[in-house]
């Protein structure tokens, strides 16, 4: 593969760049789900504080919502692992 020299340490086409890509994929893809889960759990805590008797219902639905939000982070993780270790 032809390497285009940019700086002494960075060359386009450098095979090590794919680890950079993997790290960046995970970082970019993990940010929004983390915020979403934080907001979700925060609102669930508020609801729990207002109505402690509804705890099973609130908790079940919170876990469900967290699963949806986390799935997006998992997609990013799968892509990162595939970039880093499979391709």
């Amino acid at each position, binding site marked *: 593969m032809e390497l285009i020299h940019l700086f002494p340490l960075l060359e386009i086409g450098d095979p090590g760049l794919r680890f950079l890509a993997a790290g960046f994929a995970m970082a970019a893809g993990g940010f929004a789900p983390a915020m979403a889960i934080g907001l979700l759990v925060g609102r669930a805590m508020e609801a729990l504080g207002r109505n402690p008797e509804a705890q099973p219902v609130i908790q079940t639905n919170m876990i469900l919502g967290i699963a949806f939000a986390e799935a997006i982070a*998992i997609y990013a993780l799968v892509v990162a692992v595939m970039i880093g270790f499979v391709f």
Partner: protein
Amino acid sequence: MRRFRGLAIGLAVLILVLAGFLFLRSPKPIIELKAETIFSIGPFNVTNTYITSWIVIIFISLFAYAATRRMSLVPRGIQNLFEAILEAIHNLVVNTAGEKHGRRFFPVIATIFLYVALCNWFGLLPFFATVGKVEEIDAHEAAFHEKGVVIQQKAGLNVIMPAADDVELPETVTLPDGKVEEVNANSSVEVKQLAIDEAKKEAGLSEDAKIGVLIPFLRSVNTDINGPLALAVWSAIFVEFWGISTYGFFRYGSKFFNFGRLLRGKIVDGVVDAFVGILEFVAEAARLISFTFRLFGNIFAGEILFLVVIFLAPLLFLDFVYVMELFIGAIQAFIFGMLTLVFGVIAVSAPHAESEGH
């Protein structure tokens, strides 16, 4: 002595971490996305995840058999445990789906829950990623790996022991006539053989030591994408089946093929309806993909985390990772079952009578 308790605990932690780091690290993890074939029956490849899934099924069957062998009205022993588990799942299902549909959904949801939870927990047993058959790095082999582990045999089985050495083949070799060749799967046999010899010499092994890649006999079921994919497909089939069996094929199908208003002449409303129907299809497909990748990603990432932590700092941090994996395995099983249940409830209770006249 009370004063020194904190100090003693801190010292013990430090000793454990250091001992693990210095003496018990495993070789560099070789992460394989595909499940490896152990043997083939005709055209069908039996992979290690397939074997594990059958072991889980047999385990559940034996558990159920033992629980229902001598049933008494007041449950004791294994029957009590089984009843407690099933009652918890039953309450969950009936609370979400209502009495009438809850009874119908319960077997599928309970199966999904138990099967996925046990699959995930089975993957945490000690002999899962470390005992297996060896694919030697051989110049004449068709499958050529670039790194390997020094293979040891314990009691006739190939095991990766802690503190095994890993061997990495050099990237390029210099042939006797001075040319420098790259070493990969397409190199010629002599180049590969040279690379293997060089790597063995560098690691200080004798000429006939075996290096290879270990293919475990057993592998956690959901680390292979086929496991979650199969479950997601069946979950989708069941959700559609429940919808169709409650409403009939055409009335349930009118959710997807909403051409009533278009055929009656109202163009704008009709096109919107048809578009919404197509979106419902896309939503179903997206659900299939998301079910698969949620379960696969969680469990596969857990496995990678294990391998990396064993490589970096075994003995203490591994315990925390283990607890987290237990928890995540159970939560993912719960989530898979609950999502199937919720989509089933939506399928049987959504108002399909939107078209006029019903």
